[in-house]
């Protein structure tokens, strides 16, 4: 890479950030503002396991690297709940299509994050954004409510859908119709792909709100079909964000996500470290929380009990 990406230093910094506790995260961040406008373009890729996220990312990276871009990717794979370890295999498929020195792939385990991302994703993304990348991509685990978490971390979200993966009611239940900026039906060569795309498109035509109408595309990564169109759609969405002030709109929610996650993790750390044998401490912690909640609730329901001078009646 021409203006010297320090791969070794970045590799070490990302490893440290992946494992950092909440205290370490805050220490490393220093006293800067919580939310800084970010350079480059953040792209999320989500969809159910086996839909072809890594394969599509490889093909798409190949397409966009050809334009001279530098791309940094964070690929999340699941942590084993039993051992806390993980097998991180996304890069096999990504590299098969796009083994390139302007591409940087970092595999990370989901750790305790239940939203398809990883514990310190905002810090991993920030570390990558301090390097000369034009785009940062995030690939989710792709289970549960993965689409909601990543929605709040990226500028453009690509949602992948299997052909013949049930009717659009399934997609409605999973909530994916609310979050995507671009929809891709993968394995376009399989039966049912065009029908899935048509149904999705018809539903989005009726449900999409706001000033961006998400397109529905068909891709077949092995042949490269639809990849150039996907790349064009990403550019179109990026221009839309630039024109409409969308990045500024997304910023506060990205910051809010960051704060929520840090607080949730801090609570988990406190519980995990309360007492190795547990029961006594957890029990008193639980009682304390319940008592405080009850007190707050009764105060809300009957404010005169708390403050006899307050004449306003509860609504």
């Amino acid at each position, binding site marked *: 890479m021409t203006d010297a990406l320090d*791969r*070794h230093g*970045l*590799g*070490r*910094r*990302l*490893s440290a950030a992946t*494992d950092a506790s909440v205290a370490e995260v805050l220490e490393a961040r220093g006293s800067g503002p919580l939310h800084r406008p970010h350079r480059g373009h953040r792209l999320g890729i989500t969809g159910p396991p086996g839909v072809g996220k890594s394969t599509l990312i490889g093909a798409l990276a190949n397409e966009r690297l050809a334009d001279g871009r530098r791309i940094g990717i964070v690929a999340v794979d699941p942590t*084993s709940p*039993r*051992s*806390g*370890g*993980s*097998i*991180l*295999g996304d*890069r*096999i498929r990504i*590299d*098969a299509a796009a*083994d390139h020195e302007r591409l*940087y*792939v*970092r*595999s*990370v*385990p989901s750790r305790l994050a239940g939203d398809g991302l990883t514990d310190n994703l905002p810090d991993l993304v920030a570390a990558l954004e301090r390097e000369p990348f034009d785009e940062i991509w995030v690939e989710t685990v792709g289970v549960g409510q993965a689409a909601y978490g990543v929605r709040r971390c990226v500028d453009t979200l690509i949602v992948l859908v299997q052909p013949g993966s049930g009717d659009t009611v399934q997609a409605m239940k999973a909530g994916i119709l609310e979050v995507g900026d671009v929809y891709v039906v993968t394995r376009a060569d399989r039966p049912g792909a065009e029908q899935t795309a048509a149904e999705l498109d018809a539903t989005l035509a009726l449900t999409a709100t706001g000033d961006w109408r998400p397109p529905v595309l068909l891709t077949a990564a092995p042949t490269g079909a639809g990849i150039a169109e996907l790349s064009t759609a990403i550019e179109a969405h990026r221009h839309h964000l630039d024109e409409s002030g969308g990045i500024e709109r997304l910023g506060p929610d990205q910051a809010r996500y960051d704060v929520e996650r840090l607080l949730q993790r801090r609570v988990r750390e406190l519980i995990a470290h309360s007492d*190795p044998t547990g029961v006594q401490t957890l029990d008193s912690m639980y009682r304390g929380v319940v008592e405080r909640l009850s007190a707050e609730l009764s105060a809300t329901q009957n404010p005169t009990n708390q403050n006899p001078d307050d004449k306003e009646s509860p609504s």
Partner: protein
Amino acid sequence: MSDTNTPVLARKRILVAKPGLDGHDVGAKVIALALRDAGADVIYTGLRRSPDYIARVAVDEGVDAVGLSILSGSHVQLVADTREALAAAGAGDIVVFVGGTIPAEDHPALTELGAAAIFTSEDPLDDVVARVAAELGADS
């Protein structure tokens, strides 16, 4: 760490790689799973990777160790090339393990080249995990 439930390889990142031309990775996958079950985050490269590629992935992924699985017989050359590629990338400190069909008479040469440990199919998985943990300075 006082927590006795912490797995021995917790927070360790290990690259399991297949250099060279042999096309069998059952052994590599078994090792990858054993390391994961000991708490490690294991990155697997897939088959037939060049030493340069392996070194680049090891650096990009910020790993603590690389495990090379070699069944092709060209282990001496591949270990030498991988160590050289790691050093060239400024990552000579990454620990290298070797596993596969490695005749005993080649062990000294591999140790000389900087292999931290050499494993064969004779070694019980628990021993492999314990040795890796010891080499990485993990609590056990």
